[in-house]
């Protein structure tokens, strides 16, 4: 578990630096709609860019301005402070407009802060619809990305290498699915904080090493008898991008709740959705990454996302949902309001909170709201109406 916590809480964690020191390239990416398998196939370590360990905002505020999500601002802040000096490349994706602007803000900041823009700096466009020409467009973008990586890093990304990468990543997906199943049982043997740290670690660690640790940890968990869920309310965390372990610690610190699932950009969201390990790998990657529609950045898919959320609530036996969105996050802010409306109507208690991204920020405010919500759940009993516990 220490390996996962170190990887989840440090920007320049040991696994990344070991990879880097062995002379192999590291490329950062900003959005879960970027297929990390492509980098693996190229012998590059794909690292999800994060804003943890930020202790100021002077760089982020200068180039972004005040009225924008603090997540991309924290990434730029770290870049401006040289914390991403280990990167050989960065991929910027329009996950949302704030993340899209990271492309121009980072480039502009690079004019003032020498050496903060990696040699390879690529804008990877992702459509907001998966139907019709959207999928063709995305596939074309994937091909351009592959070509660009091949040209810059002097590598060849073959179909064979891609299929191998898919198989390696699928193994991790199956293991995360097993972890999700463990958390869904009546007696939960793992805290939400530990499970989330393990999921976040997977976004930065080299895949084989991660899978090895995850496999070992899971076999330990399966032997565990102690329950984290006795007398506690089961919570699901959803909403804006979050890789902050602190948020989970805050929820579980009261000893009256255990986080049994999350629907977050960094959490376990794709589990079970394996990618075909035969056939055309590019088409399979496109179908998997763009076709999922799990993020509100995808237009016209609210009903599908609501249905997916309901299924996950059923499977995890969640008593209530904590829906958080980072300030100025229009996508999750709007979607959380719709989720709250529709889930409360089914008798599923929801807490909707807006907050800033960043370690320890807003802890006092969040503690009050989370505390009151857990008190609400403690007198409410099991949710009524649309929820019947399904045994995992």
């Amino acid at each position, binding site marked *: 578990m220490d390996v996962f916590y170190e990887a989840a809480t440090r920007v320049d964690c040991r696994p990344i630096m070991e990879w880097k020191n062995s002379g192999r390239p590291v490329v950062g990416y900003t959005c879960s709609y970027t297929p990390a398998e492509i980098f693996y196939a190229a012998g590059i370590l794909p690292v999800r860019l994060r804003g943890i360990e930020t202790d100021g905002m002077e760089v982020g505020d200068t180039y972004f301005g005040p009225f924008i999500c603090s997540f991309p601002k924290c990434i730029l802040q770290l870049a401006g402070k040289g914390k991403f000096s280990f990167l050989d490349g960065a991929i910027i994706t329009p996950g949302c407009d704030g993340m899209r602007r990271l492309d121009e803000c980072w480039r502009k900041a690079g004019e003032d802060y020498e050496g903060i823009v990696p040699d390879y700096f690529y804008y990877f466009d992702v459509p907001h619809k998966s139907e019709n020409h959207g999928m063709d467009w995305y596939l074309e973008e994937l091909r351009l990305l592959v070509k660009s990586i091949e040209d810059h890093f002097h590598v060849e990304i073959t179909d064979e290498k891609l299929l191998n990468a898919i198989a390696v990543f699928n193994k991790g997906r199956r293991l995360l699915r097993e972890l999700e199943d463990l958390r869904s049982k009546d007696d939960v043997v793992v805290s939400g904080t530990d499970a989330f740290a393990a999921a976040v670690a997977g976004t930065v660690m080299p895949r084989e090493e991660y899978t090895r640790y995850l496999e070992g940890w899971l076999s330990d968990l399966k032997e565990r008898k102690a329950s984290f869920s006795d007398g506690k309310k089961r919570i699901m965390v959803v909403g804006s991008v979050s890789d902050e372990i602190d948020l989970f610690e805050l929820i579980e610190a009261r000893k009256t709740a255990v986080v049994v699932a999350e629907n977050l950009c960094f959490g376990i969201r794709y589990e079970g959705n394996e990618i075909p390990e035969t056939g055309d790998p590019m088409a399979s990657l496109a179908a998997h990454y763009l076709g999922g529609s799990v993020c509100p950045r995808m237009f016209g898919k609210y009903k599908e996302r609501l249905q997916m959320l309901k299924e996950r609530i059923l499977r995890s036996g969640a008593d209530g949902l904590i829906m958080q969105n980072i*300030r100025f996050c229009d996508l999750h802010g709007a979607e959380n309001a719709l989720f709250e409306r529709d889930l*409360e109507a089914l008798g599923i*208690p929801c807490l*909707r*909170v*807006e*907050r*800033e991204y960043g370690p320890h920020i*807003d802890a*006092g*405010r969040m503690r*009050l*709201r989370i*505390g*009151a*919500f857990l*008190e*609400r759940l403690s*007198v*409410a009993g099991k949710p009524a109406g649309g929820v019947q516990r399904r045994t995992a």
Partner: protein
Amino acid sequence: MPFVAGCDVGSLTSKAVIMKNGKIVADAIIKSRARPGDSAEEVMGEVLGRANLTQKDMVYCIGTGYGRDKISFVDESVSEISCHGKGARWLLPSVETVIDIGGQDCKTMKIDADGNVGRFAANDKCASGTGRFLEVMARVLHVGMDELGKLTARSRSPITLASTCTVWAQADVIKYINSGVPIEDIGAGINTAMAARVAILVNAVKPSGDILMTGGVAKNIGVVSTLEKLLGMKIKKARKADPQMAGAIGAALLAAHKADTGERR
């Protein structure tokens, strides 16, 4: 039936209530000190003195408010949202929707027949729509908090604030003062801005039934009357006790429940 106590340490004021058999024995309110622990000690000392009792006479004591985790003498702490729900129901047994405006927070909530909180909403990291907003504005206008509330009724042409951000609104208010705008029009504009911000949170919980306001801002008649207009609903008045004491009352009621169910010390 033994004595129980509730201690509500807020950002602006701290309150304490001693209850017995569901009735208030004594209450106290002070301006909060820099450290929540000091505020709690002082206000509890005050209320105990008024009741001629000691801390040992309290069989159960619950702390609430932003400083609740820093109170040394309580048996447990409970969020002010839950406490205000309980307190509101005691103040007005028919209430279903509660608006609590404290010094740095504004919360709206639906409660059940026992005062348990259901759906709730709270302001997010901004001083607009809180007691602090009114306090800052009253200081700029050189009027007391009570007087600020009364300005709405006297106003003939309320100003409109361009922003409910406390910092920008303050600059706006100073501009109006310098332009010679009557103080009652400025005060009415401030109360309206406050009410408009709160109305958003009230609508977020889908208000129904009797509505009660708790917290210090409940005593601002300008905000209350404007809010009634914005919501199209009447806001009931608490006559049983000071609405600012609702959090402490709720904490004492929860303490009484704990004492009744055998969790006394």
